[in-house]
């Protein structure tokens, strides 16, 4: 019986969903304003190949292939760099969390001391 009120509170405070139109509007806005990734690396100049000795069509295909490979490599590097950046933030945030824990413990124990 002593838990009856607490059970009733748990029932009364079960999560409720917001209105569908609000939810849709919010998700749309978040998607639209998702922060662009910061700090794009300096662009590497695209290598150009001497093509005067190749038929034009083949030359164009080769340039396209080289361009695509460079783009893919740059994208991969960018993804890796951004992932590394996130890891730094995560590590520093977690370290600070635990430093906070130490500070709180010191403060709490010194207040509790007679």
């Amino acid at each position, binding site marked *: 019986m002593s838990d009856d009120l607490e059970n009733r509170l748990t029932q009364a405070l079960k999560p409720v969903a917001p209105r569908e139109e609000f939810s849709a509007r919010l998700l749309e806005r978040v998607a639209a304003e998702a922060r662009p990734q*910061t*700090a794009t*690396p300096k662009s590497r100049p695209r290598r150009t190949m001497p093509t005067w000795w190749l038929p034009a069509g083949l030359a164009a295909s080769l340039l396209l292939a080289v361009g695509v490979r460079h783009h893919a490599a740059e994208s991969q590097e*960018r993804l*890796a*760099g*951004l992932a*590394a*950046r996130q*890891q*730094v*933030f*995560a*590590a*520093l*945030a*977690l*370290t*600070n*969390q*635990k*430093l*906070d*824990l*130490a*500070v*709180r*413990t*010191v*403060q*709490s*124990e010194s207040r*509790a001391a007679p």
Partner: protein
Amino acid sequence: MKTSWRSIGVVSLLLAGSLPGLVRAAAEPRLALPEFKDLAGKATESVVITMDPSLLGMAARFMDSSNAEDAAAIAVIKGLQGIYVRSFTFDRDDVYRPADVDAIRRQLADPAWKRVVETHSKKTHADVDIYLMTDGDKVRGLALIASEPRSLTIVNIVGAIDLDKLRKLEGQFGLPKIDIDSSKN
């Protein structure tokens, strides 16, 4: 009264300076940290971060110094050679054992490491130990072990970590500043 990280740093440096004979030049600030695959298997959340100098350099290249958060992070990681984190959260108490971190504590028993903070909370049963490795007046590394009933976190930072700059990040990264003596309640 907020704990002054500068005063802790000064105390630790003074202690280090007064015991030169015990500092072994061979000790390394980088700890040998296992992956803790066994704990990871039991954890509901795992954070395993291994950032050596090349990864730190790459991360810094992708930070924007005109952005306040990025600039603050750059200031902290400049001069670091590595950041290593192992953090596990469990859905019940006592999933990990003290023996799981024995191998790390044995490394920190080297005289080159000075335990500058040792906290134990009787209420939350959380222990936080912080060690610094110094070379004269230079910090070479930091190690932190936070043991909570449902969480274990080990952090090893290699290089000249500036604790004041690190603490200034409090309030960024979504962690609000802690006001221990809050009178608002």
